[in-house]
């Protein structure tokens, strides 16, 4: 005869149905009875009930302790802040790299066949959709709600550019002017 497993003995002691086996197996019946006796003994032990005053005092203590704690923040806010930081950092890196690459390239002299050259160069440039960096940016940005992005300060507000310029040092402003002039020259040369 196959005896009940430990799980089955436990289930039987807790009221599970193995009565047909227990009716015929003395060994298993004895073990289940022992488990039931221990469970019965344990269940009879009660916790002394504190006075009603204790509960009010306890709640006051917890209330005061919680009042001294910083406010908890919901996890989506935390996750969003993290995501927004990553997206912001990536955006800065991508823009910085793009600006650096463009300024590092020598400006080609204007040639009589400039239109044809530009068209040919345009065909050889890699498409943005093939750029993994842009793909990652797009993926991350697609997970952000427009309102959330606004709350996190990722969306430029009116006057943001002017404010940014005002906060720049003299050197930074000179560099921005040089970059803008370079871009204007390139546009004129096309």
């Amino acid at each position, binding site marked *: 005869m196959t005896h009940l497993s*430990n799980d089955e003995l436990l289930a039987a002691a807790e009221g599970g149905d193995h009565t047909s086996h227990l009716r015929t197996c003395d060994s298993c019946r004895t073990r289940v009875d022992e488990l039931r006796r221990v469970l019965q003994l344990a269940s009879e*032990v009660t916790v002394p009930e504190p006075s009603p005053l204790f*509960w009010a005092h*306890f709640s006051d203590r917890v209330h005061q302790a919680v009042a001294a704690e910083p406010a908890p923040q919901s996890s989506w806010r935390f996750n969003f802040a993290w995501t927004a930081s990553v997206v912001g950092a990536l955006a800065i890196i991508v823009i910085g790299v793009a600006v650096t690459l463009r300024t590092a390239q020598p400006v080609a002299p204007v040639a009589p066949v400039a239109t044809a050259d530009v068209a040919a160069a345009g065909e050889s440039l890699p498409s943005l959709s093939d750029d993994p960096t842009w793909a990652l940016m797009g993926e991350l940005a697609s997970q952000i709600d427009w309102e959330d992005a606004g709350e996190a300060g990722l969306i430029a507000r009116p006057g943001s550019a002017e404010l940014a310029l005002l906060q720049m040092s003299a050197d930074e402003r000179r560099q921005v002017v040089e970059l803008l002039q370079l871009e204007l020259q390139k546009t004129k040369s096309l």
Partner: protein
Amino acid sequence: MATDVTEVLAQNIRPEWSVRVVQPGATAEVDLATLASLDEPALVALCLSGRREAFDVIVEKHRRAVYQLCYRFVGNHEDASDLAQDAFIRAFRGLERFRGQSALGTWLYRIAVNVCLNRVSAKQPQTEPLDVRPHIDQRAIHPDSELLRGERAEQVRAAIAQLPKKQRATVILRVYHELSHEEIAGVLGSSVGAVKANFFHALGNLKKLL
């Protein structure tokens, strides 16, 4: 085109709804009775939005169960009270991690069990002598049988206190808080099979000790 708010409300409001209009930026006053009627996810959401009084309601709902759980671990009122308070403070700190996948009570049990296990790791439980326990009216109980029951209870408490930590936690959650094996697995961070095995061995150990 301007739309009259009251007109829109009148067209859409259900009879059982109670509508309150709150100025943007104003602090909405929600009384304790209203808070007490909210379900647990709503209370947690309110807490996370900065309404700490919602946590008072959570404490009131669960303080007895959490205290009793702690008492089962440490066997005395003072330590149980401190541990229960600690468990609630930790719950408040970690409220943003409550995902709502289990009942709030089960989540609080998990915190309380961890607090208790940390404590009992550092300190052997000191059960109270019988004479300092809260007064229980024994006029209707036969003194001899009550004394015997008290002694027996003390033996069982001492036996449970000698169990390995996971076995003790399993016995407490299963026998006294009537959690299912699955819920206990969630609280203890183990598998259902491990919980059943722990429980089975715990009962075997108790049998030897009693």
